């Protein structure tokens, strides 16, 4: 005699078994396998559904026309899909990457140039001023302060005055040579 566990399956559980028996719990599956009543209920329901499907086919008319295919299958949608969109996309991405690399390379350079130009400007100005002063000093070795003290102007400086300021050593050498000559004579 079969050992049938628990109560019989409900209509919902029979429906579940009809859809897919493996979805039932282990206990229900065991019950269904051993209970003649539940198994019969399930088989009757399955049979009714199958018969209904079979009758539907029998009560449907037959297809009497002939399917006519279009002469040419090509249309715009077809051409759209045939277009090599993958290749186009790859080209676009490559171009975008090249542009991105170029921008990345160009932008920092410009920034660096701007950064160094702005702080150096005052130094250039100072240097330029210094160069002007040096050039002035080369032309007029005496400082302007000297002219202020002496009351003279730059135009009044004569060669005689310069000889006075800068001693002429050449004359002394000449004198020395004369003395030497004198000694020989003696």
């Amino acid at each position: 005699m079969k050992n049938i566990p628990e109560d019989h399956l409900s209509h919902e559980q029979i429906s579940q078994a009809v859809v897919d028996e493996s979805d039932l719990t282990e206990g229900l599956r065991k019950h269904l396998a051993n209970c003649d009543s539940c198994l019969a209920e399930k088989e009757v329901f399955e049979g009714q559904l199958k018969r209904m499907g079979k009758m539907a086919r029998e009560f449907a008319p037959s297809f009497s026309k002939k399917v006519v295919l279009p002469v040419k299958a090509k249309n715009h949608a077809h051409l759209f899909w045939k277009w090599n969109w993958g290749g186009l996309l790859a080209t676009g991405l490559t171009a975008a990457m090249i542009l991105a690399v170029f921008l990345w390379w160009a932008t920092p350079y410009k920034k660096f140039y701007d950064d160094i130009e702005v702080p150096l400007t005052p130094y250039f100005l100072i240097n330029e001023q210094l160069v002007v002063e040096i050039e002035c000093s080369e032309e007029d070795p005496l400082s302007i302060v000297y002219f202020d003290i002496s009351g003279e102007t730059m135009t009044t400086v004569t060669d005689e005055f310069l000889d006075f300021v800068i001693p002429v050593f050449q004359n002394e050498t000449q004198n020395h040579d004369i003395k030497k000559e004198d000694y020989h004579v003696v």
Partner: protein
Amino acid sequence: MPDLREDKTGRDSHIEVLVKHAKSGNRYSFEKLIVIFQEDIFRMAYYRTGSHMDAEDLTQDIFTQAFRSISRLKEVSHFKSWLYRIAVNRVHDFYKKKRVLVFLGSRDDLADFYRNGTEDAENIQADDSLCRQEFWGHVRNLLKILSRREREVFMLRFFDQLNIREISAVINKSESSVKTYLYRALNKIKIDPEFFKIFEGESG
């Protein structure tokens, strides 16, 4: 009910070869596929429209669309599911157009046909037998309590004989969702044994 998944038979292999050739542009192979599937697709359309003429027009549209887009089919083994998916979409389009034409905006795509039941004489062809009309009237009454999705899954499973996996591919839902819809539908449906006694012997 055990899933109607079949092992790969000679017929399936033959269909796959035809699909492969049709995919590469072979018109003759596609015409052979039409011969294999035209009855199933016509019946599928008839179950949902109840009109011989509309079902024939829809069958023509379905195969035309399939022919135009077969190059985009990825898996040759999924041809049947793919074809039924086109068919289901075309039937929905048909109801959308019809709904616009007759200004029945408040009802869903397939609901009109099933809610109207036997009184929808427009959908029944004059040449249909009385018994056929009566049968489909009973079926409509039986299915009108189901939601649109439940009815669709139920019909695909028991009328069109698709398995759970194929239905899941057709309606683009997971297998567990398909099972849930089917389970809900079966819970609602109560088939009177008298139903078969009336029509058995009349069919065919």
